[in-house]
């Protein structure tokens, strides 16, 4: 009985900590948006050159986008804590087509702007998984966002390699970005790594899809490789 009570207390404390961090993180973009808008209120906006005015608008927009991502991430992370967890609706997915569509719809223009290349290797024969489209989309969006964010020079390539063996499908996402230290790899999938819930949610989704995810890096400035394994499709 005492043990159960302790478990409840630990859970409540953990939740309080989570909400405390979420509240703090949401205030970050609010500060930016509010700050940019305040220049209009005080007519200071007119004192800036046109280029700077555009920059302020873009910054406020970036703040709203950051907030949007954070709100979605917080609610998704809370969904994992519920007894029911996330709802999984499996259907056959041709992985190569699926990832190409995600890239074209969400990342292509940002990658091109940064002069980044993207390619999918492997999958000479179509590779299919029986998985949940909605949540798998979130996984690839976040991984591709992450690669873009942490590649610090243009002209580099983000490569996705697709392979299949008798047990599982292996998806490797490799970038040539800033890489990570061993210490960072250890805490990469923890809540609020770099102030974000993205990779925590990616790991929880992959777990819910009965897969595995890990990351490797040879160190700072040596790129990062994410390896995702998903169960093979059994017809």
């Amino acid at each position, binding site marked *: 009985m005492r043990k159960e009570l302790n478990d409840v207390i630990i859970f409540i404390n953990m939740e309080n900590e989570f909400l405390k961090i979420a509240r*703090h993180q949401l*205030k970050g973009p609010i500060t930016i948006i509010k700050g940019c808008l305040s220049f209009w209120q005080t007519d200071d906006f007119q004192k800036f050159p046109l280029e700077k005015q555009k920059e*302020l608008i873009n910054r406020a927009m970036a703040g709203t986008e950051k907030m949007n991502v954070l709100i979605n991430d917080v609610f998704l992370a809370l969904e994992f804590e519920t007894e029911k967890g996330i709802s999984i609706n499996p259907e056959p997915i041709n992985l190569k087509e699926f990832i190409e569509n995600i890239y074209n719809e969400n990342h292509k223009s940002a990658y091109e702007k940064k002069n980044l290349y993207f390619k999918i290797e492997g999958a000479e024969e179509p590779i299919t998984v029986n998985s949940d489209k909605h949540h798998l989309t979130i996984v690839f969006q976040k991984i591709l966002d992450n690669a873009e964010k942490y590649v610090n020079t243009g002209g580099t390539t983000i490569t996705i390699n697709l392979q299949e063996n008798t047990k599982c499908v292996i998806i490797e996402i490799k970038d040539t970005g800033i890489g990570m230290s061993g210490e*960072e790899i250890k805490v990469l999938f923890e809540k*609020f790594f*770099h102030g974000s819930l993205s990779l925590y949610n990616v790991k929880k989704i992959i777990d819910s899809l009965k897969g595995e995810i890990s990351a490797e890096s040879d160190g700072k400035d040596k790129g990062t490789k994410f390896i995702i394994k998903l169960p093979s499709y059994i017809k």
Partner: protein
Amino acid sequence: MEKRKIKILFVEDESLLRSLFSDVLSLDTEFEYDLSSAESLKSGLEAVETSKPDVVILDMILPLNGEKILSPERGMTFIEKTKSNPELKNIPIIVFSNLDDAETKKRAFDLGADSYLVKSESLPQTFLSTLKNTVKKYS
């Protein structure tokens, strides 16, 4: 008449925020500002010692090895080390953080912080007037 130049050290890891506040500084007609920044406790402590700024703007939550825990300890260490160094103790520190609990504020003041602004409640203009009042108080 030439404007007085104020050296500011911004210990803050959020680049969007640093840009926003450097914009408001550019509008000020009274002073000229020389803004430098540091993104971690270690680089902040090194920078305050080498550049000896007129004022420090300090975020309490500073990352270490990519890990950004929601604890004000690194900010507290910055204040404590700066204020206990005879050569640096007269440099005013304005805390600029989204941690808004009374305990954190009290500890920061007890250690020697001069002002405490909550980011999401402070407009760039409030930030500028606090900064200028602090600089004038110490000149």
